[in-house]
């Protein structure tokens, strides 16, 4: 069974990548299994300066999922370059650096500081965070702003740039096409869906931040739909993410048009989720008649072109 996937900057031995924010820099999971088993690792968002994040509670459970409002807590790009990236160099896996910021210039600054690291193979722009220069709206919700930050990142970057799209928009295909045109090498989709829970005893929001990002199996159908719609409209690779718990879920994303996948909150449900999925993937691909991951990518798009429903 051929699990390999080649994407811009990323030579993945298998298509499974822990998603940014759910895996830190891998240190804790390295106590549980060999990180070299993974196709890649999307490390926690880096911002120019340290961010202390939101007050607690930051976590709430939901039916088949969870809400989080961590607030991009991280030590800042200098610390990550100095302490975390050299540590990650010991593993035979592809490191994707997730980049976040409050202004377009923040993304450029983080990328410039990470360019010299041989450990980072590609960037993933988190454009879901509120932007201070544009009235607090996320860059990812406006095609022009999304394209602009993509262009600036591409100019600054010496490595391929993937853009992680937010699902909290009316038309995700429009945003995807805009960042493709601006030079994005690939897409990662989807980020979390904005949600909220309220405590019945106190009538107050459960999260200190009031709202948070919904993830887990509850969002998987939304993610599959968005990957599918986008895959039909763009010519750059898509890394699918949203509620993946099993090798069967991976296959569903591949069918929808994803070339690889990120696994997020499943790591909390089962800390061994990623190696288990990787181990099970050959069996599932074989069961449905595939000899490689590549063969399965975009399989469902073919049917629509041939009007199989009629």
């Amino acid at each position, binding site marked *: 069974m051929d699990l390999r996937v080649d994407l811009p900057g990323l030579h993945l031995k298998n298509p499974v990548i822990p998603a940014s924010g759910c895996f*830190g820099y891998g*240190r*804790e999971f390295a106590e*549980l299994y060999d990180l070299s088993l993974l196709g890649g690792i999307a490390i926690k968002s880096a911002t120019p300066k340290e961010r202390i994040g939101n007050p607690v509670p*930051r*976590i*709430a459970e*939901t039916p088949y999922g969870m809400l989080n409002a961590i607030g991009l*807590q991280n030590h800042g790009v200098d610390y990550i370059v100095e302490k975390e990236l050299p540590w990650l160099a010991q593993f035979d896996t592809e490191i994707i650096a997730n980049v976040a910021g409050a202004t377009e210039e923040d993304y450029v600054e983080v990328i410039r500081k990470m360019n010299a690291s041989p450990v980072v193979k590609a960037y993933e722009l988190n454009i879901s965070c509120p932007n201070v220069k544009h009235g607090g709206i996320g860059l990812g919700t406006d095609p022009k702003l999304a394209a602009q930050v993509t262009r600036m990142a591409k100019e600054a970057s010496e490595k391929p740039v993937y853009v992680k799209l937010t699902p909290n928009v009316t038309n995700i295909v429009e945003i995807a096409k805009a960042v493709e045109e601006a030079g994005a090498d690939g897409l990662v989709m989807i980020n979390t869906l904005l949600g909220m829970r309220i405590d019945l005893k106190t009538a107050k929001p459960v999260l200190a931040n009031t709202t948070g990002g919904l993830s887990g199996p509850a969002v998987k159908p939304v993610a599959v739909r968005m990957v599918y719609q986008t895959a039909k409209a763009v010519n750059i690779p898509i890394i699918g993410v949203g509620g993946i718990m099993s090798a069967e879920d991976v296959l569903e994303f591949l069918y929808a048009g994803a070339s690889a996948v990120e696994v997020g909150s499943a790591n*909390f449900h089962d800390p061994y989720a990623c190696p288990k999925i990787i181990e099970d993937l050959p069996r599932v691909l074989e069961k449905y008649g595939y000899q490689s991951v590549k063969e399965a990518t975009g399989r469902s798009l073919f049917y629509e072109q041939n009007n199989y429903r009629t």
Partner: protein
Amino acid sequence: MRNDTALITEQVMIAPDIMRMELETGIAADTSCGQFIQILVPGYFLRRPISVSQVRDDNHLSLIYRIAGDGTRVLSQLKAGVTLDIFGPLGHGFPVIDEDVVLIGGGVGIPPLIETAKRHIMNGHHVTAVLGFASDSQIFAKEELESLNAEVIIATMDGSCGVKGTVMDAVHEYGISKERTVMACGPLGMLRVIGAYFEHGYVSLEERMACGIGACMGCVARTPEGDTLRVCKDGPVFEIGKVVL
């Protein structure tokens, strides 16, 4: 820290909405007082972090938990003979120190103090356990601690048993010196008062968690200097003065 399929050997309600569950698991051999395990409750997404109340032997753990919501209600209905997916032991627990200690627990904060009491008593030290409850109908763990030879002092808010008032009212009434080493677990307000009174000791914090291993930054506390601590990984037990309560 590992994954295991644990067998429930007994599960009983020991006070209103307070359950005691006995588990057969090899994780017991590595578990120290004040640590916790993450339990996957069938049908629920996030694991439930539950502190260990006693390490019976290398193959048996005892847990005491409160039915706080739907997930723990489902957990409470599982019978002996059922297996559970558990992960642990997790976190840094209470230290075992070479002196007599005062243990203070409020309600469902009491369980991790039981193993802590046992280890100090086994080392030949005297343990004073101050337990706080709403009323005498809520009392649990008293006999368990007394059978370990701990001195147990009860405080109830309505005065139906022991000292009327909070655990701190009992501390004052019994003249427990602020110079003794305290180890406490319970509501944040209680820990705050304890941290202000005792000169040295340890508190165990509770927070909503996701990963339980320090990766997701979901459960954080702050140092007085403003640095971040992870309740699941750096704690849940912290030295008084090293964490903002």
